[in-house]
């Protein structure tokens, strides 16, 4: 195990695997969120896939890098923002004169297009963003509770015998000096 800036580096295979899978996970997750109205998936499913990025960074790099890459304050505020956006989109129905969660611009595109379902599309994006940040924050908290990586061990005794002897004689002289001072005072 090598040491790099005092942080233990993980196994090379796991690190390479995390490197290669990470952009794929994020892109695929964002695809599932964005195309929620035309293909299977949607907000929650895509959000969980993107949040698995946190676990991948942890597996490849360890907890210190993860906590530097994803800041928990931002994630926490982002989750609440996503949820408020969802409720606000629902309240648009009441502002528009109908009931709550009414799809008020539902005929603005053809079936099969990306932006075609009115309020439902944006609600799905809001849910995806909320789940992304929320599950990421949850994973970050749980990973933080796990046992931290052990400190890098001190280098083994590489001092030569002469250096040890010099140290011992120095210690002896120090001790004798202290005793003389005490004897005097």
């Amino acid at each position, binding site marked *: 195990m090598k040491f790099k800036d005092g942080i233990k580096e993980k196994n090379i295979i796991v690190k390479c695997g995390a490197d290669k899978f990470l952009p794929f996970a994020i892109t695929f997750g964002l695809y599932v969120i964005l195309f929620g109205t035309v293909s299977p998936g949607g907000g929650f499913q895509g959000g969980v896939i993107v949040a698995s990025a946190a676990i991948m960074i942890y597996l490849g790099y360890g907890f210190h890098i993860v906590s530097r890459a994803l800041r928990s304050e931002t994630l926490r505020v982002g989750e609440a923002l996503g949820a408020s956006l969802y409720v606000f989109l629902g309240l648009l129905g009441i502002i528009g004169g109908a009931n709550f969660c009414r799809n008020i611009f539902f005929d603005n595109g053809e079936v099969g297009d990306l932006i075609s379902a009115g309020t439902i599309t944006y609600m799905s994006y809001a849910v995806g963003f909320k789940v992304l940040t929320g599950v990421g924050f949850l994973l970050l*908290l749980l990973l933080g509770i796990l046992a931290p990586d052990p400190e890098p061990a001190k280098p083994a005794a590489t001092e030569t015998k002469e250096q040890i002897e010099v140290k011992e004689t120095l210690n002896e002289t120090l001790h004798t000096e202290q005793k003389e001072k005490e004897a005097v005072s």
Partner: protein
Amino acid sequence: MMIVNYIASFVLIALGLYTVCTKKNLIKIVLGMGLIDYGVNLLIVSFGFNEGGTAPIYQLSDLLNGVASGYFVDPVPQALTLTSIVIGACVEAMALSLVIMIYRKYRSVNADEVRRLRG
């Protein structure tokens, strides 16, 4: 053939209840709670199946004109199951974080030793 699904779901619920009632390790109790949730999810999804039906993605004009075969599986239990899966995941996350904090405080995850509130 859905009878297999129903039997499997009831077996899962029964095993989950057995685990919650007899095992002493707190983590096993959390796993039992999860098993009950999975069994109930399987039950809900199985209720929506219609033999020979297709996926429920149609336009209203197709259904009214009779262009499509018009026989599809029920989409409502699928929505119920999604919600239930989310709820199950959240319950397990909360329970496991409570178990971690209990371990830090009580130094044990055995149910016989985590009993300061009694009587």
